[in-house]
């Protein structure tokens, strides 16, 4: 088997839903052994979001939302609120490099599993926490779910049509941003441990991680003291820079010109060479000032054309253009297919289907998806038996006492 970049790293993963599991998906894809720990009574919410018909057997093992974000991981169930469960978790921590969690700020301490406790079990442990606001400050206990994060981070205030309200991103955008940030932060701590021999506590406050992606607006505000207006799809100084209708129902294409030469090329493809010398459009500042007129002309041209035809013709002359691709488009996208972006995966209960592959493509250290996502409690035997050394009887007793389970109690997600 190919060596992977994080071979030999073991992570205990207490996270659920999207942000945390996305972080550990990135790390598991890179070769880390991620052991996902779920509560028998509060399994990962994504297991409940299968969209399968009611009555489907073991739906919790067949949610694509869960199975895409948890592939390459091992999964155990363990009740951390039970003293024996907590003790076993600390035994697991002794064998791990890092622990990651995205509970609300106070939960880990309430379980008596804060950094100090983990460090006592494993002196060089790295703990990564992903609270919405941070673990201190007056708002630390406020609820901040998916879509709230971009509102708190300042991003939503910058998103929107001109003159319109702030607009939400179509996804809970704060989640994958915090996830990628947490993966990076954990790796930083590993590299630091390598040099200093010490672990540490790492905190990824999700709203702060996302504000990091609009830092120029923060610095800009401190210069101008002016709230930046929402500018839709436009650019601070390039023009055109917009999204235009194309043939078909709800089909769109984005087009941008980064300089005058690209605009001349666009005019050529539109067969409107006179535009390139029109005083309103000849140079970028003029185009920027006359964007309403310019967008009407370009939109008139694109409206009757196939979006991929416009894309091909503009790409050929070096003008940035791209159809607005939907998830349906992406699944069939010839570029992604040519790159092998989708790989077929077989899951022992959910069947066989296409899944996006490892995102960080290393030339020598990339591998196909190694294992499908764990069924609920699938690796209880391996982790509690083989890794922690419990006997078969002891492992069976855990399940009998409800400290572990192989069938989750889904009641909390009804």
């Amino acid at each position: 088997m190919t060596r992977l970049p994080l071979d030999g790293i073991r992570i205990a993963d207490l996270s659920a839903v999207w942000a945390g599991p996305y972080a550990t998906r990135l790390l598991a894809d890179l070769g880390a052994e991620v052991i996902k720990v779920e509560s028998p009574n509060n399994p990962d919410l994504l297991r409940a979001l299968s969209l399968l018909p009611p009555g489907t057997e073991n739906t919790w093992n067949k949610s694509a939302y869960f199975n895409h974000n948890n592939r390459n991981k091992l999964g155990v169930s363990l009740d951390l609120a039970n003293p024996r469960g907590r003790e076993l978790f600390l035994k697991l921590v002794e064998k791990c490099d890092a622990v990651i969690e995205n509970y609300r700020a106070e939960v880990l301490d309430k379980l008596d599993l804060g950094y100090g406790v983990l460090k006592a079990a494993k002196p060089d442990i790295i703990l990564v926490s992903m609270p919405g606001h941070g673990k201190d400050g007056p708002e630390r206990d406020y609820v901040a779910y998916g879509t709230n994060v971009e509102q708190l981070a300042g991003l939503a205030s910058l998103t929107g049509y001109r003159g319109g309200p702030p607009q939400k991103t179509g996804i809970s955008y704060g989640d994958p941003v915090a996830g990628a940030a947490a993966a990076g932060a954990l790796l930083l701590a590993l590299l630091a441990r390598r040099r200093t021999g010490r672990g540490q506590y790492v905190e990824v406050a999700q709203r702060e991680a996302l504000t990091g992606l609009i830092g120029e607006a923060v610095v800009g505000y401190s210069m101008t003291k002016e709230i930046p207006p929402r500018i839709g799809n436009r650019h601070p100084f390039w023009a055109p820079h917009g999204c235009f209708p194309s043939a078909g129902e709800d089909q769109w294409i984005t087009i941008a010109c980064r300089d005058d030469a690209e605009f001349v090329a666009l005019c050529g493809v539109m067969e409107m060479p006179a535009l390139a010398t029109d005083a309103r459009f000849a140079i970028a500042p003029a185009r920027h000032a006359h964007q309403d007129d310019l967008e009407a002309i370009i939109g008139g041209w694109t409206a009757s054309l196939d979006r991929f035809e416009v894309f091909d013709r503009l790409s050929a002359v070096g003008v940035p253009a791209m159809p607005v691709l939907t998830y349906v488009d992406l699944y069939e996208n010839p570029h992604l297919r040519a790159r092998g972006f989708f790989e077929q995966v077989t899951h022992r209960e959910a069947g066989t289907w296409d899944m996006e592959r490892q995102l960080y493509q290393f030339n020598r250290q990339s591998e196909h998806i190694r294992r499908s996502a764990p069924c609920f409690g699938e690796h209880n035997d391996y982790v509690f038996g083989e890794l922690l050394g419990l006997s078969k009887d002891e492992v069976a007793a855990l399940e009998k006492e409800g400290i572990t389970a192989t069938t989750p109690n889904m009641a909390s997600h009804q």
Partner: protein
Amino acid sequence: VEIGLKLAHAVICDTDVTIIGAEAPVVKPFAEEHHPPPPSALEGLRVVDLSTGISGAYCTKLLSDFGADVIKIERPGLGDPIRAYPPANDPTQPLETGALHLYLNTNKRSVTLNLDTLTGRDLVERLLVGADALVDDREVGKLAAQGLSPDSLLQRFPRLVVTQISPFGQTGPYANIPACNLTAFAAGGQMSLTGDPDREPLKNGGYQALYQAGLNAFAATLAGLWSAAETGEGDSIDLSGMECMASTLELMLNTSCYLHTAHFGGRRGNVLSAAIGVYPCADGYLGIHAMPRNWPALTALMDAEWMREDPRFHDAASRLGHDDELRAEMYAWTSGQSKKEAYARAGEIQAPVAYVHDMADLFSSPQLASRSYLSPVDHPLAGELTYPGPPFRLSATPGRPGRAALLGEHNEEILQGVLGLTRADLDVLTGEGVTS
């Protein structure tokens, strides 16, 4: 030119070149000269950055803010194109005082080198002798065209991590098409879900397609550095922004892959369902994100406990069946609320309601102030401005504050101090336009 070639010859043929690199004096980055140095996560690692875009700049900002010695190679004269982005704090110094540049190029060392010259490229190679990583976000093929293909670099520098960031990846039919943040965002799928259903799809604020690629490239580079430290072998990384975005469409792409359905629809504007949306209030906008278990807290916040009993709203399914009526209730309630008061009351009872923070709200946020997230950074030409802190907090090896480098500020420090050139060499190189 002749001197340049001689120098190139010396670089390639001089067997002592490795020793020069190894013995190069480590010049402390600016921040460490002015503050007692806290331990940093990436101390001792050197990164050569050829990037000219936001993706690469954000990747290497995170590396430099956490202690790596990032040497940023810039075009003589104009420098990194992102220097030119407005607003600039001093319009007479547009390349030194732009907000985007000031934010993204913190703690890096700037050296000007013309990579269209053989000598310029050879000097980059000499820098790579002592480097741990190379980051590049320029158009696909440029690195190889300059004689620096990842394969050839790894032959010469086996421990190097070469991170190439691009909108679509280094291979495939889109690899060479021109792109910018907007078109890259359209490619990733997030845009198709953003905006009002009866209007055009909308990009989100700023340069999110490029930042996402940069953030992921940072994590990927660190994984490469870890692996190189473990095994003594480097690797090259092909990071596609499109792929990072396509993997983050909530349940849309994954469930569609599995169930072969396309029933999730597209853009749903500001209100996904009544309990998840952005609503106007008296002085701004409130964001509600209530899951079934939050219903009691939300109705308490709204002083509308009656809704828990109302058969239209008493459970999740009935609420979904009466979504329009529930939206009407939400609009009626939010319109009378002031954003900060509603947020504070929501916090007290853990109701899932936040408000849309604009830039002024960030600057007056009690939470961010309590955590000192925003802090002043001084710069010799731009003056003191407010910057976001690091996006994550490492308790033992925190991110370091610092400022952006002036264009070519570290030419002497690097070309003389690190590479061992003489003052006379520098004059020749300047005369030939290799540096400035």
